[in-house]
């Protein structure tokens, strides 16, 4: 088990290194940030000075080296725009994002898993087809569209829910729905296919041959096995939800890191973009690690080192 975790850790560090390099180079393709930071009509000298202040006059290699060195020391740099430490900005936005993601995840699992099970058990029948339509809608409707529809109906028409901002439990309902909608469909699909595969297995056939009640066959023998891939996907999706909520956060003016990243890109705020992406990457890596460990806890074949 220890060896297993160590091995995963090594892989994680390598992927983070590659990610840091990629984002470092990509963010510099968006253009020169100094143009956005100075008054219109500023002199070439002023711009050069600012560039020097921000350390952008150095060669790429030197910039990257100092970026990595700082990060290893735990220094994520200062925002070009706000002039405050990026980490502070990030951490102030993170709780909102986590809260939104958790709410969206609960929603997506509560909808996705039971409907996936029903679709698999009733394969080819009404509920299965109904679920297919639902999954298609979930996967194909753009988030901003779902968001706008929700706002139109629940805020403008019914006046039940606040259309933007955060602070109360009412504020999170629509963004969570808009964000979780897509994932509910994804969770339904994977639950269905994983359940179907397990239901066709020899051990489920044997469970039926033993004369077990159908409920026990499905809940005990099939579901536990079928949930393994669902759990993996949900773990990864949770991190995705924290980090891909850019659109939903913008539509609902939700103060999370999605909007921070959006602002960072708009202002060519390199440290903000780099840090947000890198921290997102780390989160994905950590959750993958946790999922792997959970896997090992559920599955004796991994736990006992088969």
């Amino acid at each position, binding site marked *: 088990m220890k060896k297993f975790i160590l091995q995963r850790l090594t892989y994680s560090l390598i992927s983070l290194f590659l990610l840091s390099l990629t984002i470092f180079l990509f963010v510099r393709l968006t253009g020169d940030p100094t143009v956005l930071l100075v008054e219109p009509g500023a002199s070439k000298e002023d711009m050069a000075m600012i560039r020097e202040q921000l350390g952008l006059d150095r060669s790429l290699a030197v910039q990257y080296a100092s970026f990595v060195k700082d990060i290893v020391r735990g220094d994520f740099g200062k925002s070009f725009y706000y002039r405050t430490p990026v980490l502070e900005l990030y951490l102030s936005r993170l709780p909102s994002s986590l809260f939104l993601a958790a709410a969206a995840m609960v929603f997506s699992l509560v909808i996705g898993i039971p409907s996936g099970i029903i679709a698999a058990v009733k394969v080819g029948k009404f509920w299965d087809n109904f679920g297919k339509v639902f999954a298609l809608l979930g996967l194909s409707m753009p988030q901003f569209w779902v968001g706008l529809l929700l706002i139109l109906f629940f805020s403008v028409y019914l006046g039940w829910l606040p259309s933007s901002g955060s602070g109360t439990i009412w504020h999170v309902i629509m963004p969570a729905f808009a964000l979780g909608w897509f994932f509910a469909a994804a969770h339904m699909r994977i639950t269905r296919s994983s359940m179907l595969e397990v239901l066709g297995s020899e051990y489920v056939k044997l469970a039926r041959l033993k004369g077990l009640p159908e409920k026990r066959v499905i809940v005990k023998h099939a579901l536990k096995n079928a949930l393994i891939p669902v759990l993996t996907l949900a773990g990864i999706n949770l991190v995705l939800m924290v980090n891909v909520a850019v659109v939903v956060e913008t539509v609902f003016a939700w103060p999370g890191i999605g909007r921070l990243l959006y602002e960072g890109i708009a202002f060519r705020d390199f440290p903000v973009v780099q840090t947000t992406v890198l921290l997102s990457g780390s989160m994905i890596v950590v959750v993958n690690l946790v999922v792997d460990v959970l896997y090992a806890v559920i599955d*004796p074949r991994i736990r006992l080192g088969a």
Partner: protein
Amino acid sequence: MAPLLELKNYSTHYVSARGTRVVKAVDTVSLVLNSGETLGIVGESGSGKTTLALSILRLLPMAARKTDGEILFEGEDLLKKSTEEMRQIRGKRIAMILQDPMASLNPLFTIGDQVSEPLRVHEGTPRRTAWQKATALLKAVRITAPETRVREYPHQMSGGMRQRIVGAMGIACEPRLLIADEPTTSLDLTIQAQYLALLRDLQREHGLALIFITHNLGIVAKMCDRVAVMYAGRLVEFGPVRKIFDQPRHPYTRALLQSIPRFADSRNRLTAIGGQPPDLSAPPLGCAFHPRCPDAIDRCRGEAPPETGTTNGHTVRCWVAGS
């Protein structure tokens, strides 16, 4: 005495989703089996042996949309039972060992849990007692150190052990009939021989009837009281083992007997007969065996032979041998 199991003109057809392809996997099969007896079912791959076994337990794949005939077990027609009544019969009065023992155990539960499950479900045995019984069952199927094995998981067992564990599960509730579908992915020969010996011992101790599905006539000769020879979904010959081995009547049975491997090696898949087994979705007209039959006459090509019986339950489906 009424037989334990009797099939009367029983058929199972697989029908494809659009209804265009029909596979007569089991076609008008009649046979009888008495308590405590062993029946061997032999036939090439795809001849319908597994389908026949699953039909008795009414656990057919979804594609098996059409069934017909009667399956009498202890005098009652299983096809008339409700789903719940069937569930109570499975694992309790009729048990089956699947063809693939390696994949038959659930990877996430301990051996003890899985072996004790039929007892808990059918007899309401409390967990502790059921586990003690499971340990005893493992011992009965000659698993060494059963006390530790009950707490282990399937992936920690060898293939031979898993096969015996599935056997232990089968006899947990002391069924009247045990159906053993012989593994196609064959185990080591000595392990196979031990397994067969074990099945025979279990049968003797518990007085259960055994249906043994195999490709191997050599094994049938050693183990069985009766033989059913299947070809393309039909029983082409059925009767007491001695009769069939001494005086085989159907040309297919004769060909099988000539191809018996010298050693009891189930990997030998009865391939010694010339020609291909028929495609069951488009079987040859008349007697399905006629393209490969050395004795075929004109009539065989146009008309399927009926089942003709002789004394002491020896039946055959052949125009030439049956007349």
